[in-house]
């Protein structure tokens, strides 16, 4: 029995599957509680359903991308562990980076055929330990932190306050950083100002942005509001299609 066979054994599926099931149950509990709280607060069920539908459609495509991450890591870590990591707490860029660094510390490369059982257990522990802080901070400080923010919000003079503007600005900053990196990749990706880097991410972003413009036009000007639910996923799909066509 090879190491990879052991990493794909039913025992590992059972351990990882049980944890995934626990997290799924937690999500269902939070979902039901939030729905009931919304009804008790007098919120419109149609709007709540709309939030759920849009979130579900929004999440399908990125989830398929995450599934590919499971595939990518399964060659060296087996299927069950990457399945657990990417279902529950991780993100592909994080998992890949930490798994690589952990493999380095145990003196192997993260590659099929190189894995040992102890190396795997060590890598698994490090992958778990490095990304727990958000959860710990939330458990320790969420109540106080949110109460403090709430106090600031209610102390504000205007109706909406600066909170919403700050969130939009934060998002603009986040998007700017990524778009800037795609532009930087094209211009200096293969040496400063050589203009020979990859242009695909920029093309994909441009097509997705154009598609979003189309969706917003149809929703706002033609009053096809239902399209809003699919605008992000649809724009992403068209952007990704552009990558396939450009790569063909």
């Amino acid at each position: 029995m090879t190491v990879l066979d052991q990493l794909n054994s039913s025992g590992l599926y059972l351990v990882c599957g049980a944890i995934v099931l626990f997290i799924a149950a937690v999500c269902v509990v939070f979902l039901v509680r939030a729905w009931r709280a919304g009804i008790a607060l007098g919120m419109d069920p149609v709007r709540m359903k709309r939030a759920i539908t849009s979130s579900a459609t929004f999440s399908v495509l990125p989830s398929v991308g995450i599934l590919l991450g499971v595939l990518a890591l399964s060659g060296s870590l087996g299927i069950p562990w990457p399945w657990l990591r990417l279902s529950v707490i991780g993100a592909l860029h994080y998992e890949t980076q930490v798994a690589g660094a952990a493999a380095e510390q145990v003196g192997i490369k993260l590659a099929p055929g190189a894995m040992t059982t102890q190396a795997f257990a060590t890598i698994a522990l490090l992958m778990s330990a490095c990304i727990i802080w958000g959860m710990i901070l939330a458990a320790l400080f969420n109540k106080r932190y949110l109460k403090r923010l709430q106090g600031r919000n209610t102390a504000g003079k205007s109706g909406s306050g600066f909170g919403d503007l700050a969130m939009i600005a934060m998002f603009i900053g986040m998007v700017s950083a990524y778009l800037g990196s795609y532009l930087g990749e094209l211009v200096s990706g293969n040496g400063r100002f050589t203009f020979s880097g990859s242009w695909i991410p920029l093309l994909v972003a441009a097509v997705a942005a154009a598609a979003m413009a189309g969706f917003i036009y149809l929703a706002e000007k033609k009053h096809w509001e239902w399209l809003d639910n699919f605008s992000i996923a649809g724009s992403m799909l068209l952007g990704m299609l552009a990558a396939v066509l450009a790569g063909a």
Partner: protein
Amino acid sequence: MMDKKVAYEAYMKTTHRLGRIVSVLTLILLLGAPFVIGSLLGTMPDLGAAARGFLSVGLVWTVSSIVEYLVYTPMLGAGGSYLAFITGNLINMKIPCAMNARELVGAKTGTAENEVISTLSIATSSLVTIVVLALGVLGMIPLRPVLESPALQPAFANVVPALFGAMAYKYFRKDIRLALVPLCIMSLLFMFVPSLTASTSFMIIPAGAIAIGLSWLKYRKGLKEAARK
């Protein structure tokens, strides 16, 4: 009105209690799993190597986690943030997903409506990921040839640019003049220091700070003008 306030306060109290309990349980499960798996494999993790690995990469992720916590918790509210920090994939999925849902229903930060919508959104998003991954893992063998086909690889390698392209149009149109400043600064930085592309997620911090700073100045200016009138 009073009943609603009391009901919401009771909901929040239970949410915090539940959030803390499930966070601690998840922590125990995730840190315990490598030891349980190790015992199934007849070995144990090398704690010395794990500690060295933590010092090399773990500290970076610790700083990143603290910043993520401080920045995203106000967006997500109580229930949403407990769930999001348990289920992960924040930047690439949970945050834009919750922002999108919030936008669709017009909920404002810090309100009870935002708390409910954000929790509904994060819980739904997490369940979709769990279901897609479970189905994918179940069907991984027949699915592998399709998903790994070379023709589809460029698509899945560009999920993040597709996401940020779509979000760019959605958010930049709210204040294009504000957006141009961080966009130009970030583009120039990445052009002059190409190695920064490996740390894009960290560059969100200065980019966000610039955008928030400009937005604050504009907000203050608006308040002063309103007061003058």
